[in-house]
């Protein structure tokens, strides 16, 4: 018996996730910011972190967006290969869910139809959809509503293999330093290493889906994440770039195979308002 799932359920889930993500800080991010308040020694950095805590509390209690940039709706799907989707077009249902969530939730519509003609689509669609087919008969949906300020500070470089970890490390730390206050630190830093030009960017983005601060399962890469976090927090950028010890909350690295000529590295920068939700249907 093949399991069936109506696409309207997916639209409903997406609509509520984009609203909820913008109103309520997820526990992993809230815990990381609370730890930052304990670790930060700069008075002005402290003051910023206190404001962010007050802001998060207000957003949740009044059910309003914590940040006015309510983001680009990124929807990551893991579709079980034994699942049968019924009732219409899957992607259309997701766009419908995003449009409804942004409308009913009083979220900002920030998506333009064309990069140069620049006309607002009016409902924050299209959602940006990423699909993987996996074993099983479930649908796992992860939603990130990602602001533009941090995304703009992201970088990708095709390093020569001779650059090695030292070259990759330098590129990542320099990218975070250049982002500074523009990207709303303390940041979550998503890093992709390996793959090719496009895969490495996706790795960096998917690294942001991991709960904040959960280490890479491979101890060697987990140690590199810690090393990067230490280096980044030496920069002195601090909360909102005003100077301090906590520039990043976490660094997550994802890796994959690559060609003998290549050492691709991508850094996807995420702001402190790291808004993400997930559900399994």
């Amino acid at each position, binding site marked *: 018996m093949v399991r069936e799932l109506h696409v309207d359920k997916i639209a409903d889930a997406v609509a509520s996730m984009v609203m909820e993500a913008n109103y309520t800080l997820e526990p992993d991010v809230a815990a990381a910011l609370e730890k930052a308040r304990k670790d930060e020694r700069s008075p002005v950095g402290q003051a910023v972190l206190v404001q962010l805590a007050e802001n998060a509390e207000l957003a949740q209690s009044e059910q309003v967006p*914590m*940040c*006015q940039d309510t983001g680009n709706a990124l929807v990551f799907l893991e579709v079980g290969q034994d699942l049968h989707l019924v009732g219409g077009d899957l992607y259309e249902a997701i766009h419908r869910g995003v449009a409804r969530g942004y409308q009913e939730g009083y979220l*900002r519509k920030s998506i333009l139809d064309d990069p140069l003609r620049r006309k607002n689509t009016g409902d924050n669609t299209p959602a940006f959809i990423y699909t993987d087919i996996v074993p099983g008969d479930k649908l796992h949906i992860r939603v990130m509503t990602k602001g533009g300020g941090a995304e703009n500070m992201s970088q990708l470089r095709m390093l020569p293999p001779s650059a090695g970890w030292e070259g990759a490390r330098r590129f990542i730390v320099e990218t975070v330093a250049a982002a500074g*206050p523009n990207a709303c630190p303390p940041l979550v830093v998503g890093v992709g290493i390996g793959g090719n030009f496009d895969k490495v960017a996706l790795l960096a983005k998917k690294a942001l889906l991991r709960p904040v601060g959960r280490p890479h399962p491979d101890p060697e890469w987990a140690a590199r994440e810690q090393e990067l976090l230490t280096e980044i927090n030496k*920069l002195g950028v601090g909360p909102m770039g005003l100077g*301090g010890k906590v520039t990043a909350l976490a660094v997550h690295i994802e890796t994959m195979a690559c060609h003998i000529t290549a050492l691709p590295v991508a850094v996807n920068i995420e702001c*402190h308002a790291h808004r993400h939700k997930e559900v399994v249907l």
Partner: protein
Amino acid sequence: MARHYLTTPITPEQARAIRSGDEVYITGTIYTARDAAHKRMVEDLEAGRPLPFNPQGAVIYYVGPTPPKPGQAVGSAGPTTSYRMDKYTPTMLRQGVKAVIGKGYRGPDVKAALVENGAVYLAATGGAGALLAKRIEKAEVIAYADLGTEAVRRLTVKDFPTICINDAHGGDQYRDGQLQWVEPDAMVKPR
């Protein structure tokens, strides 16, 4: 670090008295404008048309708020990243604008224009949109309504909290603040 409570419009003397690192609380009328509105304002000026507001002593806030819920004056309204306005800012300062509010680094042309025109660049806390909206009592679209969230709005604010990043004397709080906290063996030094 001093604390200033200012009511708009801002006088040249008030602007020059602000130093980088100072807290500046603004009360009165400020105007919103982001990328698209700046592009239009500069085009208007080039075509000989007036700005949608009197620029003398004016304050511009780089923000695109969320739609207000029923009963709200304005939705969430934190600052957007300022460098995207760098191309237009010297023109606005030459028109008499005395303060701009955003977040993030400014380029050398903007820093020079702040000194030449006796104006300041202020930062509000990025990502604190719900909290900052509480200091905004009224919001009305006054130009370019077709731009939606990017339209020019007249905001009535009360003690709107900012910190001065770049002052009219070349001071830079991002540089000074970060130099104070950077570790000696950091891979990159503050710019």
